[in-house]
């Protein structure tokens, strides 16, 4: 059995009469990229707030690295929760010096992380002079300080332009490929689908799903196809066993297929029947389809 980084049991948080997090239990294994997915207000940040001791839970327990969550455990975690929090009048370097002092890591670490996020040249600039993207990158640098055993990123691409989003996503992927355990909270399905191995879906503080991302999206593959002769194509598809449902929108057919479905097999089958496809695509947003289905049910 792999090492458990975090185990949470029955977490509960109330704000007045509102139950923000309701009896939440989950575990994070070492080396996994765990996605905490849910719409705004679903309880993602509240859950993280309790786990990081900034919010007092109304119930439940949690353990970091097998021990009760204290400051020594939090020093092993790099976190950016609800955006970067820094002193506006201090330079990037001095802002990171504060965390280096708290985590008791050498100042040489600051150079490493600032270079990693591309801010070393701006180390002496005051935080208030940074753009949104640079602030976000400094927040990530702060989280990476001291080679944490777990990286927690809460909406890391918030407020970024497309280039910034791609940069941050690449950085997360790079960290994940290096075996870094990551807890990523986001409401952006695409972001979670691309990097997460495991998933917890929250809505109104309740857990709707917990498990591997693959399991969540399994059986929800959709294929788009088109050809010049749509009626013949439709007729042949009805004879293909792995297709569950066909819908048509203008000249495109949308196929709901079984999990074992392979696109190249369908292409070969149709070619043998004399049909040449002019369009063949796997729908990218399987997670979105499943997520919307799940949240609308609840």
């Amino acid at each position, binding site marked *: 059995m792999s090492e458990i980084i975090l185990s949470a049991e029955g977490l509960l948080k109330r704000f007045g009469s509102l139950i923000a997090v309701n009896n939440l239990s989950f575990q994070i294994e070492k080396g996994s990229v765990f996605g905490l997915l849910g719409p705004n207000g679903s309880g993602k940040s509240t859950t993280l*707030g309790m786990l*990081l*001791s*900034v*919010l*007092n839970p109304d119930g439940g327990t949690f353990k970091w690295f097998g021990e009760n969550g*204290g*400051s*020594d455990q*939090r*020093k092993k975690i790099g*976190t950016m*929760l*609800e955006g970067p*929090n*820094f*002193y*506006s*009048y*201090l330079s990037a370097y*001095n802002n990171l*010096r*504060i*965390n280096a*002092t*708290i*985590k*008791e890591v050498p100042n040489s670490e600051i150079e490493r992380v600032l270079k990693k996020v591309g801010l070393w040249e701006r180390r002496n600039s005051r935080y208030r002079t940074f753009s949104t993207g640079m602030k976000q990158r400094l927040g990530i640098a*702060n989280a990476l300080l001291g080679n944490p055993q777990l990286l927690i990123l809460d909406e890391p691409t918030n407020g970024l332009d497309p280039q910034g989003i791609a940069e941050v996503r690449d950085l997360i992927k790079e960290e994940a490929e290096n075996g870094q355990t990551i807890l990523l909270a986001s409401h952006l399905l695409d972001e979670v689908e691309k990097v997460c191995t495991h998933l917890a879906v929250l809505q109104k503080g309740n857990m709707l799903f917990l498990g591997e991302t693959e399991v969540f999206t399994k059986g929800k593959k959709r294929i788009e196809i088109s050809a010049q002769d749509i009626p013949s194509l439709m007729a042949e598809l009805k004879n293909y066993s792995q297709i569950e449902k066909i819908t048509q929108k203008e000249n495109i057919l949308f196929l709901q297929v079984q999990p074992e479905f392979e696109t190249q097999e369908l292409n070969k089958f149709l070619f043998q029947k004399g049909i040449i496809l002019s369009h063949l695509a796997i729908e990218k947003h399987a997670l979105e389809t499943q997520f919307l289905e799940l949240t609308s049910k609840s």
Partner: protein
Amino acid sequence: MKKLLRLEFIKYSRSTIFYIFIGLFMALVVLSEIGSLYLANKFGVKLGFSTLWPSLINTAGQMNIFIGIIIMVSITSEYQYRTIRQHVIDGLDKSDLFIAKYIYGICLSLFAVVFVAISVIIAGYITGASTTGSGPWDGSQLLGSYFVQVLGYVSMAIFFAFLLRTTAVGIIVYLFYMPLESLLGSLISYISHNDTTIPQYFPKAIFSNIIQNPGVIKLANAAKAAAPAKTINILSEQNTLIIGFVYIILFAAGSYWLLKKRDL
């Protein structure tokens, strides 16, 4: 402890607001001392060091509010920047945050004591207090009481900061509390037929009376002698100091409770 001190140093050694308020405190202490010396000179009073220390420490004590504002801004801006939250996330305990702010408050109080001591010594030599026969440290034992007084104002400011969490509201409440307490004291005194016993136990009254103004004591004693039927009880310096300590502990306990109990 050393780590917390280093943290506070990184934060405030580069803060413009910190230097503005410290500068204001220093300038106002010097100006108020000059004013006191000018008045003494005008009425032909020759001050030796033994009378210079209580007079100028009492005058400087009026500026303690600025030290309180410095510590208040340092705490409320942590809430504003959400850095207080980030520190806990990064690995500090709430108790560390509390201790760090008290260390900072104690350092500020010590700075005020040292600055006032230096200014009194300089003022004494400029005005010729050294020629009156008293040594430069005669009366300087009041510096200990002055330290407790500044720490009292600092503790009160720390409490208001943790209670209110926003800079503007915190400063307004802190500043308005002072006249409000006096007003409430007067009202209670009026209702209880000029009995000033209760109002003198209020926190601000206690802190400001830790260094008792020699002139006010004379006036109170004269009033008591003229109207023995009236209840004019003045707490002794020693009792005021003890009650001051109790208030400091109460404000510290209240601040810690607020920090621990509330979400960040």
